[in-house]
């Protein structure tokens, strides 16, 4: 009796959890597809109150900011992961491991405050670079920890075989160990990327947003997530429509980037072989 009751309850919780998930996806797709059009993808925002216009500059801005973040964060994260797996099986390594777990839990808004102090205050103005730095700080711990785990999955014998052939340690690490773990490492990088791609809080006072085109990395830049936030809180119906369209683009961007890399890895074009 209790047994059936509890099974029923468990099924009910699953239904209750899946309900908002389906509702959110369905709504973003439904409202997003209804609102997206060519102007949205090719134009910059119209002045307040006018309908029309789009988020082309914000889409480009997001790509630029994420590019800066990846350029800074990915090499450092993978390096830290290599350190943890190959050189860090000791007390120092444990410290780095603990610290990166701690960094992973720091609220994104606090990272934004720090990037403001580090870059914006020193530079004297808001910039895409500051936003990139903030997002890079958020990417590093995730990349470091997944890289470490993936490298540790590579059997010790493979390393020993390479050493036995007289290959030096750094060549072994780069061309044998890291090469074998490539697909796992890339998955980790994509995880980190997906995590920061939709971040808004650390961009609020680092890149600030911009209603015009901007390609200079030391100037305020528009970002998709920031634009969605501003438009969602605005009183205009047309801006609400664009916020939904922006959400759809953002989700497609994230899911698209992740699946593209997954497929590339599975096909073997990027996998080490």
């Amino acid at each position: 009796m209790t047994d059936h009751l509890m099974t029923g309850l468990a099924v009910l919780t699953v239904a209750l959890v899946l309900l908002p998930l389906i509702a959110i996806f369905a709504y973003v797709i439904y409202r997003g597809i209804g609102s997206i059009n060519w102007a949205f993808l090719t134009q910059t925002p119209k002045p307040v109150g006018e309908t029309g216009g789009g988020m082309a500059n914000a889409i480009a801005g997001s790509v630029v900011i994420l590019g800066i973040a990846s350029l800074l964060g990915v090499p450092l994260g993978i390096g830290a992961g290599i350190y943890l797996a190959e050189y860090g099986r000791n007390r120092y390594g444990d410290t780095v491991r603990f610290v990166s777990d701690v960094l992973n839990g720091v609220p994104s808004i606090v990272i934004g405050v720090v990037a403001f102090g580090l870059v914006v205050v020193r530079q004297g103005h808001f910039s895409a670079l500051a936003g990139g730095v903030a997002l890079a700080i958020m990417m590093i711990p995730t990349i470091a920890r997944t890289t470490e785990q993936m490298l540790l999955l590579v059997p010790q014998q493979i390393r020993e075989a390479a050493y036995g052939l007289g290959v030096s340690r750094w060549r072994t690490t780069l061309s044998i160990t890291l090469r074998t773990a490539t697909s796992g490492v890339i998955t980790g990088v994509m995880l980190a990327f997906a995590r920061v791609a939709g971040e808004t809080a650390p961009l609020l006072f680092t890149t600030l947003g911009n209603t015009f085109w901007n390609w200079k990395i030391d100037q305020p830049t528009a970002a998709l997530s920031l634009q969605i936030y501003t438009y969602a809180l605005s009183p205009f119906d047309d801006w609400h429509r664009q916020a939904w369209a922006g959400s759809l683009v953002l989700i497609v961007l994230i899911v698209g980037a992740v699946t593209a890399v997954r497929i590339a890895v599975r096909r073997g074009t990027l996998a080490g072989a």
Partner: protein
Amino acid sequence: MSHQALPRPSFNAPDPERVSKAKLRVETKPVPLLQGKVSEVPDTIFATAMRLCGFAVVGLLGLIVYELVRGSQLSWHAFGWKFFAQSDWNPVEESFGALPFIYGTIVSSLLALIIAVPLSVGVAVFITEMCPVRLKGILSFLTELLAAIPSVIYGLWAIFILVPLLRAYVQPVLGQTLSWTGLFTGPPYGVGMLAAGVILAIMIIPIISSITREVMTVVPQHQREAALALGATRWEMIRIGVLRNARAGIVGAVILGLGRALGETMAVTMVIGNRPEIAKSLFAPGYTMASVLANEFSEATGNIYTSALIEIGLALFFVTIVVNALARFMVWSVTRGQPAKTIA
């Protein structure tokens, strides 16, 4: 003559052991198998570079602490500990107290936990113990998909779907039946503490349920078999054999969820109402530490205003670090020795 039968050490012939060692030494004389010089220099350079990357992570944390402490000096000297006990937030008169934000952060997070914990544990139990194998992958993929949705999209959805729903259906019912508790009184705006708690709950379910699942998977199979052998029903087996053994890890998962909820910014800012007041009713608008940073930081005029906001950031930073460290420790106490999966 009997002496001849004894083995006589010969001083001319070399000791057989020494011979083999010497030969061995000759045979293993380093022969470069690869072309080119074998040098230790590139190895040292590479190791140093990787070490630097590793220690940069520690440096990063140091930098964060340094920036936050430096930025909050002004406010710290002006208000001291009183900053965290005072509920007056008045940028015009430069009087700052963080109490309403601390209150809002704690209440919204606790509310989220009250809603999310039973749901996430239920989902984890279903996926690990009850679910047919075919559904398992799909369900865990779907719950993890919830974690991939950006915070700002949760906020957007909450503004246009969740808040109207709460205002029209949930709040009137709660107001009629539970107003005697004092928690559900006042006009049903929709936006406010309740909306923030619900959206936070939706957002932290994936992390709590995925770690609970991980902890439940490492409970040894023979615990389950033992319970079943003693005649336990499936639920009794789950309760006695699994949940009891995974207790500490589940608490850890819940605390990790709490850490997420405390620092969550965008979705909360969009629905909590943003009013720095302490109200008992959950229908009333509130404010959280993260939201006040999101709303006021870029517009803060005056050094002391900025400094007060950075001090709120510092407090938030320390609280989440303590909460996360505690959670990691508890999860580790269960999964120790097992290859821990990624906790992203």
